[in-house]
């Protein structure tokens, strides 16, 4: 291959294609091209795995850090980038084969998907704070547009609410970046991390709080996540799956990456992040119990899982961090499947209410079966992937002799069982004959192909978690090893 395989392609290729796409007139060739790009990016991520296992890749752009801008592809960044592209490729395949609702046809969703992936990749890869802000806004604006893809009342309302709350979060993040620059004169994250301890303590608190508010809103942590269910309910379920599966994971990574890098003593952040994670888990799972709308139930369930991941990541031990990263992968797969199946069910019933979906499992046995499978994975039942990652997290806490998170996670699983079985029971309920459904035809058989692929991945990762174990442990070490990251970046300057 003439072009070198470097991390910059993860950002350049999707941006380039997304901006060129509107100029392309021949629709027949455009859709395969836009879908193919996702596959190419996934292949690129896979091709970089051997190199990154040896050492993290640093790509400087024009000038070396700390003055210039660089991309930092270490084990954890590669894991997330691979996850994003895998999820985006599966979603693009589904949207392409499904050809369902009108607002998801044509090139628009594919172009926005490319932009979103470019933004998320950039946030994970970049080593520069201001770049981070720009990518955060790219991902943000794309998410607003995706939310309002369907120009009906619910879609526009979701988009508007998302713009308002997202802009406020961005202001707080920018404020923190400005304060950091004024205090240290640096924007390179590693250089800022090296100087951060020298900042006066009250200013450190102010910066920390601004970052926490800005990124806490974006990463959907309690108490900043009041807006999330509205957005997930108003957006198309395929878009909601993307928010829950890709976007939140990117913001969560940014929050923890900055917390681990900036603070020399991670115990300061531990209290806050674990506390927020625990509160998110508990509140979301409790509220999910009584949701009458399938999309809202899934949104609260997603929040609960985000809380669980934050709780495990915040503990900063290697075992819980690796388990949390594994749980990120599993949650992305499971929520992708749940939201996409929910989309099919909702379209058939022309409603997302519990009453309307009653008995639908008999008309759509495959969809209902996949819904049950993904629910079981979220609950953490063997032999599904969710079990393997939850077990890993619980073992990590048990090894460290800390038991309250274990009790909390198990209690959360119990609540999850409560509300997921309520919906599964409704899907398979007998008695009242299914009412006349909307005019929506049954989805094309081929649309189930990506869904079955996700289900197969969930089964595979549950049955053979050791396939990923070495990479996950490597990723956890890369995320936690502050000194190596700083040295790797600042030592690279000539």
């Amino acid at each position, binding site marked *: 291959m003439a072009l070198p395989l470097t991390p910059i392609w993860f950002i350049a290729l999707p941006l380039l294609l997304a901006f060129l796409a509107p100029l392309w007139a021949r629709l027949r060739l455009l859709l395969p091209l836009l879908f193919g790009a996702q596959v190419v990016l996934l292949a690129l991520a896979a091709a970089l795995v051997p190199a990154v296992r040896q050492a993290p890749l640093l790509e400087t752009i024009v000038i070396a850090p700390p003055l210039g801008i660089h991309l930092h592809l270490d084990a954890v960044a590669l894991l997330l980038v691979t996850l994003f592209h895998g999820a985006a490729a599966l979603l693009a395949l589904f949207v392409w084969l499904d050809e369902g609702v009108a607002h998801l046809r044509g090139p628009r969703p594919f172009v926005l998907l490319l932009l979103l992936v470019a933004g998320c990749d950039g946030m994970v890869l970049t080593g520069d704070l201001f770049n981070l802000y720009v990518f955060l806004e790219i991902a943000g604006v794309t998410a607003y547009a995706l939310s309002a893809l369907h120009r009906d009342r619910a879609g526009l309302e979701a988009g508007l609410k998302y713009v308002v709350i997202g802009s406020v979060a961005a202001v707080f993040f920018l404020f923190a970046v400005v304060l950091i620059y004024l205090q240290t*004169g640096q924007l390179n994250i590693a250089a800022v991390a090296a100087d951060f301890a020298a900042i006066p303590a009250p200013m450190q608190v102010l910066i920390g709080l601004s970052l926490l508010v800005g990124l806490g809103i974006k990463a959907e942590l309690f108490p900043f996540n009041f807006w999330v269910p509205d957005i997930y309910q108003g957006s198309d379920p395929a878009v909601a799956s993307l928010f829950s599966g890709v976007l939140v994971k990117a913001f969560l990574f940014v929050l923890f990456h900055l917390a681990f890098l900036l603070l020399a003593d991670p115990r300061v952040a531990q209290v806050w992040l674990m506390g927020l994670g625990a509160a998110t888990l508990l509140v979301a799972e409790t509220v999910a119990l009584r*949701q009458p709308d399938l999309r809202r139930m899934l949104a609260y369930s997603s929040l609960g899982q985000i809380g669980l991941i934050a709780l495990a990541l915040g503990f900063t031990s290697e075992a819980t961090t690796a388990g949390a990263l594994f749980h990120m992968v599993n949650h992305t797969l499971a929520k992708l499947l749940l939201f996409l199946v929910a989309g099919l069910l909702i379209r058939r019933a022309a409603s997302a209410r519990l009453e309307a979906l009653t008995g639908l499992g008999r008309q759509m046995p495959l969809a209902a079966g996949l819904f049950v499978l993904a629910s079981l994975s979220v609950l953490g039942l063997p032999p599904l992937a969710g079990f393997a990652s939850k077990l890993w997290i619980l073992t990590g806490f048990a090894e460290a002799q800390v038991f309250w998170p274990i009790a909390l996670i198990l209690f959360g699983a119990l609540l999850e069982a409560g509300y997921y079985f309520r919906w599964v029971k409704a899907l398979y309920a007998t008695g009242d004959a299914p009412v006349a459904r909307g005019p929506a035809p049954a989805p094309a058989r081929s649309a189930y192909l990506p869904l079955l692929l996700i289900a197969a991945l969930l089964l595979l990762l549950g049955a053979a978690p050791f396939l990923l174990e070495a990479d996950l442990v490597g990723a956890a070490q890369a995320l936690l090893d502050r000194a190596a990251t700083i040295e790797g970046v600042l030592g690279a300057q000539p």
Partner: protein
Amino acid sequence: MLDLLDSPGMVHTIYVLGSMALFSIGLYGLLARRHLIKIFIAIAIMELSVYLLFIALATSPGETAPILADGLTRFAGMADPVPQALTLTAIVIGMAVLAFGVTLAIHYHRLTGIRDIDAMTELKD
């Protein structure tokens, strides 16, 4: 006595107070106003206060633009160019997001006749 106002410390204090006042006005507008467009204006004011703070604190009185022209041959007594470049970028991004938000608000108003954020009740528990 008025020389005091020209000292960097005094100028910076004035700008910090001004930008804090702007931020508070924006935050108040965001929380207290219900009209969609007014909420977007409030967010724009909050952004503006951050830009002002950045530019004001990164430069001191008497510094010039870091451009070698008009007889200037050395980089001395010049302002740090990074904050200016970053603020320009941030202004562009902020304006784009604002335009997008206002577009959505106009679409929403045409569709439903609603411009009050409290009346947006399609998505609720």
